[in-house]
């Protein structure tokens, strides 16, 4: 009994030291990572909405209200051009095969997708990672979704259909789930 407690304490000590060191390293690297991700999402918004000249980020209270119904949604940015709202850039986080996938979903003011861009993912190289490596995947979302949602199917040629990556069903579905939540949130909250 005494021995067991001693072993437990040793393990506790080792894991505490390890946790402390990692917390230290994290405090150095996380601001660098966060800053880089912010820059990337800004330039990504411009990729989806080339005409954008201004943007308004929703604050945490507004996000909390929307993410209560749509848990994937983390950030919403209203995209403005010439003083008019031309759409919304919605950041969603969904569970993929190798961890969370962060996708920026551009919804135009008319309810169709301006496009999508996967910002962060750690899917299997050569399989799930094709959500980033195959430009045709993201392109297949453009101008779809006016009917309120998209469905993955084959090459994604049909109306409101997007490309289904064979061998990467989980990754494809994760991206599609985020996109559909963004479309729902747009229809029910943002378009009013």
């Amino acid at each position, binding site marked *: 009994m005494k021995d067991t407690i001693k072993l437990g304490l040793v393990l506790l000590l080792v894991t505490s030291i390890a946790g402390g*060191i*990692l917390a230290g*390293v*994290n405090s150095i690297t996380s601001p660098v990572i966060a800053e*880089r991700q912010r820059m990337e999402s800004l330039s990504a918004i411009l990729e989806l909405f080339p005409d954008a000249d201004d943007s308004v980020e929703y604050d945490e209270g507004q996000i909390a209200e929307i993410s209560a119904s749509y848990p994937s949604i983390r950030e919403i940015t209203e995209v403005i051009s010439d003083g008019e709202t031309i759409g919304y850039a919605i950041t969603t986080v969904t569970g993929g095969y190798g961890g969370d996938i962060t996708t920026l979903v551009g919804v135009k003011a008319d309810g169709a997708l301006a496009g999508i861009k996967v910002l962060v993912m750690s899917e*299997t*190289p050569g399989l799930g990672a094709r959500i980033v490596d195959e430009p045709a995947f993201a392109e297949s979302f453009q101008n779809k979704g006016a009917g309120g949602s998209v469905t993955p199917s084959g090459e994604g040629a049909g109306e409101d259909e997007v490309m289904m990556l064979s061998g990467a069903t989980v990754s494809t579905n994760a991206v599609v789930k985020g996109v559909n939540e963004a479309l729902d949130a747009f229809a029910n909250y943002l378009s009013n």
Partner: protein
Amino acid sequence: MKISTIFKNGIIKENPVLVQLIGMCSVLAITNTVENSLAMSAAVIAVLLLSNIVISSIRKLIPSKIRIPIFIVIIATFVTMVEMFMEAYAVDLYRSLGIFIPLIVVNCLILARAESFASKNGVFISAMDGLAMGLGYSIAIIALGTVREIFGSGSFLGMSLFGENFQAAAVFVSPAGAFILLGIIIGIFNVTIKNKATN
């Protein structure tokens, strides 16, 4: 133990990839390009060296009943550090290696060196062992990466070698091609370098 013996063991006689055949999962997955192989080599050498140094320096304080969990915690700490630094300062590499960086934790090469070497030897000699095994691993995966990139993508370190008419053998890009190639490399390694070195 002589340092030259340690290096000879790590690189030739007990080469982790070509002789011990451990840590195959990441070897087959990430050796599709030379750049990925180099990055993985650097990450594995860093983790192996640091974990061997730390484990050998506290080896007398570790109760033997819980040594494995302690080794894993130490290895996981270093892997997570490498991962965080890579994500902050080498994003492209971080993206191309993806899930295989955190999976270094379960690479049995590192736990095997901790258990069979670092927990029984001094700090300096364990550091040398980590370096030698890391080099053996690196040489093998860089060789694999070189052949796979040349035949599978017609390039070396991203530079195109043969011009546009080159018909790439796509099988070398997939893990299946890596398996076939690994077998061939092990065969060549056995009849040339290893047999000479052991006799």
